[in-house]
């Protein structure tokens, strides 16, 4: 019952936050010093042509009226039309979002599966060469700008070594599998198209790794710090004194308690990673919502940018809700909080 109340309270809060997000993105989009209608009409357009576009997209109305129409559209789960393509933004998002989710999930999977054991081992082998190496990884993972790391890895693994492709999601000659989820890797797996799966995996390695780097670094550092603290706790000492096997002490008792802040970190990183796709998708030409947002922003096509912002915001909020629920599962004391 308490859990249900928490969920309902958080969902109500989510609605308020979404309202704020809409207001902010709408305001920011409309104070930008550019004329979307003029850009959409083309460089040679006459003033009459620009006005045609402006009228077609309702940009000749007052800002409060435009906001009211936008909110009315949102309530009908519509996100307006792209002034560049005329497409419904919701349709475009449905088309491009799976590619982004695929990349984000892969990078998060890698960050967690590698970061947690690496943090754990660095804590257990404190001040060893492994611990120092992890520290170096953590610093560089956070400090390296994503676009620079991306270009560097492309140069090494695609150009010099020729092991991996430079960019894209699939070879231009390979037809993607018929969509089930829209995620090429998953769809290839579900349809048993192993060759496509292998090829898609090779294309995903570099962008997923670059996207994962900062999260990996953060998870390693947080997990290491928490493990060190937990390993020094009385109850761990007591467990050891009672002869509980070291593997069980570290791998279950200590790790489970150390995972609470790590879990919160994973939730935060998920949202951050979703936002970071803008850079990574641009360098790797990954056809997701990040690239869609960049292409739209360059053309001052604000409805798609607002749509992407909302999609990222909602995903971020929902992820955090799920993390909070997981928190309650790991630590029952937090359930009624």
């Amino acid at each position: 019952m308490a859990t249900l109340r928490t969920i309902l309270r958080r969902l109500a809060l989510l609605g308020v936050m979404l309202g704020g997000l809409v207001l902010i993105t709408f305001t920011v989009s409309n104070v930008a010093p550019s004329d979307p209608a003029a850009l959409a009409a083309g460089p040679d357009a006459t003033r009459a042509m620009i006005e045609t576009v402006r009228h077609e997209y309702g940009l000749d109305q007052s800002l409060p009226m435009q906001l009211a129409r936008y909110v009315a559209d949102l309530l009908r789960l519509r996100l307006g039309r792209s002034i560049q393509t005329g497409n419904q933004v919701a349709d475009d998002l449905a088309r491009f979002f799976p590619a982004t989710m695929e990349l984000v999930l892969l990078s998060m999977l890698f960050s967690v599966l590698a970061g947690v054991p690496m943090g754990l081992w660095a804590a257990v082998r404190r001040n060893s060469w492994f611990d120092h190496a992890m520290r170096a990884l953590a610093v560089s993972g956070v400090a390296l700008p994503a676009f620079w790391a991306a270009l560097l890895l492309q140069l090494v693994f695609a150009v010099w070594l020729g092991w991996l492709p430079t960019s894209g999601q699939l070879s231009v000659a390979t037809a993607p599998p018929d969509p089930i989820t829209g995620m090429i890797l998953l769809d290839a797996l579900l349809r048993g198209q192993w060759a496509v799966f292998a090829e898609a995996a090779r294309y995903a390695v570099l962008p997923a790794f670059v996207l994962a780097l900062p999260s990996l670094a953060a998870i390693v550092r947080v997990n290491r710090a928490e493990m060190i603290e937990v390993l020094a706790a009385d109850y761990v000492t007591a467990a050891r004194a009672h002869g509980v096997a070291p593997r069980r002490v570290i791998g279950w008792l200590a790790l489970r308690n150390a995972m609470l802040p790590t879990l919160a970190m994973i939730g935060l990183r998920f949202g951050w990673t979703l936002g970071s796709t803008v850079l990574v998708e641009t360098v790797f030409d990954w056809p997701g919502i990040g690239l869609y947002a960049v292409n739209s922003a360059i053309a001052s096509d604000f409805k798609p940018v607002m749509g992407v912002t909302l999609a990222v915001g909602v995903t971020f909020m929902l992820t955090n809700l799920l993390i909070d629920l997981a928190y309650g599962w790991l630590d029952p004391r937090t359930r009624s909080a």
Partner: protein
Amino acid sequence: MHRRDLLLGGLAGAAGLLPALAPAPAAAFERVGDRRTLVFSGGQPVPVLDPHVRYDWSTRMMQQCIYDALCKYEGDPPKVVPWLAERWETSADGLTWTFHLVANAKFHNGDPVDAEAVRYSFQRALKLNKGVAWMLSAHLDPDGIAAVDARTVRITLKSSYGAFLSFMPLWYIVNPKQLAGSDDYGQKFLTEGDAGSGPFRIKRWDPQAVMALDAVADYWKGWPMAEADRPAGVIYRIIREPAPRKAALQRGEIDIATELSPDDYDQLAKAAGIVVESHTGMTPFTIQMNTQKGVTADLNMRKALAYAFDYEALIQIENGAAKLMDSPFPNAMAGHVAIKDIPRRDLDKAREFLARTAHPKGGFELEYLYVAGLEVERRIGLAVLESLRALDIKVNITAQPWPTLVARGAKAETAADMVAVYVTPVSTDPDVIASQYTSAAEGLFWGMHHLRDQQINDMVAAARLETDLARRMAGYAAIQQRIVDLQPAIFGMLEDRKWALRSYVKGFEFCPVRLTGEADLYTLYAAKA
């Protein structure tokens, strides 16, 4: 064995396995059976394919693949050659144009390309009032197009228009039968759909990543290469950033790359298996000066700046792959004449003109504005800064995104003192460039100089209506001189247009009137070894 040894052994094993991940050497080109598909890459997406709604270089390149027009630009210098129209004639007063269509042209679905399709396409473009409409909207009403018979179209203009024919290669013909029943003239369908008769048809369309086209084997116009060399298709792959695009070419993932930096092209030209096509372009680079506000409102100041600028720096920045402008019109444009007294660096003259201004000793600041992210424009800004130091004029170099830059330039009050601009003319007719210096252009991105000169307005209007070619060209010669006299811009350079190609790519044909990175994919093929 210690755990540490195990760990190290595991790492070594993993490292040893890494090469197994390595793909087979990248295919030099994609194959479909015994035919080859070339992969062309640029950084610009193609959000809308509709030929009457939008055009820019990448969009037009794809439109040219899928659609045909009555005529087409070919060659260097560019010429308008017959395409869907096998011939045409015009009345003595220049008001009526009659086009006679070829008999064998057909759309991809098998429907014939007839006069009705031409009438519908022109009317559609004019009624939508987007994309190409500006070219004819002032001179042609939608009911001015008539299908005389199945193979004859008559277009009656409201007023004679010397540039009319030069725009015909950009007015593509769509199949009205495929758009019948649509309440938006088929705009939704044509955003990514195909209603054309061109040499390629759409196979796969992902507007953010890949556009794959299949060659139409029995294309009504035939193919320019030997049958055995005819490609299976062509792919336009979007790689936004120049560095990975260059890397993809080196790796053989793509066959043709454009939109690289001058240094990249120089490096690639030295690489084995890659050739660089470099041709004098038709895109003037100018530094427009605000003629209405600030110190540059004074003609003497604009002359001083134009004489102080180090033009040779432009050539150096382009690694020699550019030509200085000798007129406001590019060389390949009809009616181009070299203006003898177009400014070149002459500091004595610059000081002479400066002495006639309100700031005879300099000692003030100017803003040089360029498009954020364009490295060449940034480096030109440094050349401006260095050049004007000789007149004791300080230059503030600022970068802004394209939309902001254009919005600022829309009004003389907010326009920068100097702004770097490339303008690619869409046709070879001189009216396209001349009109950029009329009051009608004020506030558009090529009119950020805000020049207001009634004499130029009158001269351009008269030349536009003139039907006698010799008199018309004489008019444009005078217009070029007048523009240079008023110096609304520092007339910079014509940058070479470049493409880097794998050496097996044959059939490349340059035509300067195409837009920046655009190439004619119809003529390209991969030579068999």
